[in-house]
């Protein structure tokens, strides 16, 4: 194995589809044992980037290594040590769970195949469903099967593309516990998600929009670097307040959260001015810490101005 500390270390990775740049010169470094969250709106290029990492797509530009193997030349080696869970379920619906796992185990020539299949069924709680056809499983169980299958060859890097889309909260929590256990054991995980709670469970994050990497770091760093000011308002007639606020310069987001409104903007002075204009003694105003979601939406709006 290579001595590098990074499981993923790429620079300038670019992909174009018919003249449209879908991934634009992305640099990314992911340490071994880290859970790295990959966020971004639909169509921002997350899936495309992951496919380039595991050799499914050839980058148009860029270079780097994945597990110490060159992403351009040593794709075959990379494939042997990476577990890739596709966004769309991509195991055989007309094969049973056990047959699917057995197939993957054979492909990777896993030692003690029968034992490995059984252990993976047990660990993910799939054992009593092992004879069921994959096509008959509900969405959540399909995800479990997919996770089991991409772990069976003991990979060093997991690439998970929206593994928890459509999965219920409890199952999602179990899934994340599993991911953390695996990471604690030294596995590196790159995971895409649209859920903010999941983003916060990652060690570090990157946010992508229109193929550009806009920010990265820990959740705290990401929020701090965004320099977003957020106020929370509570009181009566919040709909009117929201409508009034939206007409003011410097108010970028007005979002209803239950019985409160969150009002954010990057320019604190303009935001204060706007709030002063609509302020009314019936409402209680409080400055709060911006959330990841506020930050991401703000980033996306800014990106739209810059790139779209």
């Amino acid at each position, binding site marked *: 194995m290579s001595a590098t500390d990074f499981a993923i270390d790429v620079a300038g990775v670019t992909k174009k589809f018919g003249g449209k740049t879908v991934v634009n010169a992305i640099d990314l470094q992911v340490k071994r044992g880290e859970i790295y969250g990959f966020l971004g709106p639909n169509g921002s290029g997350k899936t495309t980037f992951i496919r380039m990492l595991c050799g499914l797509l050839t980058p148009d530009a860029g270079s780097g290594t994945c597990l110490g193997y060159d992403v351009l030349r040593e794709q075959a080696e990379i494939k042997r040590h990476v577990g890739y869970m596709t966004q769309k379920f991509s195991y055989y619906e007309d094969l049973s769970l056990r047959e699917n796992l057995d197939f993957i185990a*054979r492909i990777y020539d896993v030692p003690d195949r029968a034992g490995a299949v059984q252990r993976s069924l047990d660990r993910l709680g799939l054992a009593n469903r092992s004879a069921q056809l994959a096509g008959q499983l509900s969405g959540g169980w399909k995800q479990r099967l997919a996770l089991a299958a991409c772990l069976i060859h003991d990979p060093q890097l997991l690439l998970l593309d929206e593994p928890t889309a459509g999965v219920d909260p409890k199952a999602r929590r179990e899934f994340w516990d599993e991911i953390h256990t695996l990471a604690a054991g030294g596995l590196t995980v790159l995971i895409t998600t649209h859920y903010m709670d999941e983003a916060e469970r990652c060690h570090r994050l990157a946010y992508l929009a229109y193929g550009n990497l806009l920010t990265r770091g820990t959740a705290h760093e990401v929020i701090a670097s965004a320099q977003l000011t957020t106020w929370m308002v509570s009181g009566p007639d919040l709909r009117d307040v929201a409508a009034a606020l939206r007409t003011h310069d410097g108010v970028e987001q007005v979002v209803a959260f239950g019985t409160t409104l969150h009002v954010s903007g990057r320019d604190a002075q303009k935001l204060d001015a706007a709030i002063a204009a609509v302020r009314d003694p019936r409402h209680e105003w409080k400055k709060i810490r911006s959330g990841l979601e506020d930050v991401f939406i703000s980033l996306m709006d800014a990106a739209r101005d810059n790139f779209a």
Partner: protein
Amino acid sequence: MTPRRFTFHRLWAIVMKEFIQMRRDRVTFAMMIGIPLMQLMLFGFAINSDPKHLPTAIRAADQGPFARTLVAALRHSDYFSLVREAQTEAEAHNLLQLGEVQFVINIPEDFSRKLLRGEQPTVLIEADATDPAATGPALSAVRAIANSVLDRDLTGSLARLRAKDGPLNFSIHAHYNPENITQYNVVPGLMGVVLTMTMVVITSLAITRERERGTMENLLATPVRPFEVMVGKILPYIAVGYIQVTLILVAARFLFGVPMVGSLPLVYAVSLLFIACNLAMGITFSSLASNQLQAVQMAFFFFLPSILLSGFMFPFRGMPEWAQWIGTCLPNTHFLRIVRGILLKGNGPAEILPEIWPLLAFLVIAMTIGVKRYRQTLD
């Protein structure tokens, strides 16, 4: 440990998977057995039917008693239905040309005279042999009818005319179909047709199906090699091909009584090559097509010339040169010759060798295109 190398465990993984999927896909599996059975029944029925009452024209230049006896006997046989009397040769030909009659029986002017002199007059039977299955039985019946009937008339002093080889000669002109395919020709030929049809269609779906269902992305993310996928998908269907070959051979022997002069193991050995050709073709289509419908269309595009230009439907030598060229490129053409050669003429390895090379060449080319076209990435 270079991952680029072909490995058996990955090949075997694909083979096992395909077997399971084949078993689960009951409809397709039923088709693979059903199609040969159906074709056997359809073609077999046409072959087995012994058509009677075929429209026949008589051109009798001699109206003497012997000629009348012959005509009456033919009329009474089940095979001929004397619908017309032609006066001139031109008229007779016209009837044949238009398909109004299947046969023209020409009784020469000097029929009775020659018969009485023991000179064995020649009766010319012209047949429209476009459909040899129709004319064959009638033609073989005519000799027997004439001889037995005239033998009855040739009594007393005329008995000496009952020559060993009959009192008269028949000269048969088969028009329009020089090669004269017989029933024995069709059933062995069916083997190539059935295999082409089922093998190409089924495997043409093999890779497009993975692509359409999204399982391809997963497969590509594993270390599996294109050659392993191709061969892994071909092997299980070779077994299916052998089931079909066996089915047809059994039917040929016991249902249709096709003689089997040559070596059956040789037939099986050559079938392996031919099945592989078709599977490679299917897999290649599969790697070219972007969806399953396209794949099936391509398979049909291949199937039609294989049935029409291979010498199965029409005699190969009767086809225009360009059609023969196309036919020469098709594996079915060579396979038909091999199987007919082995079964009917008792050909051995030496005789069929000239037809083996084209099959090998086809296999290598199809396989190469397939592996080349199989995309290792999603680009």
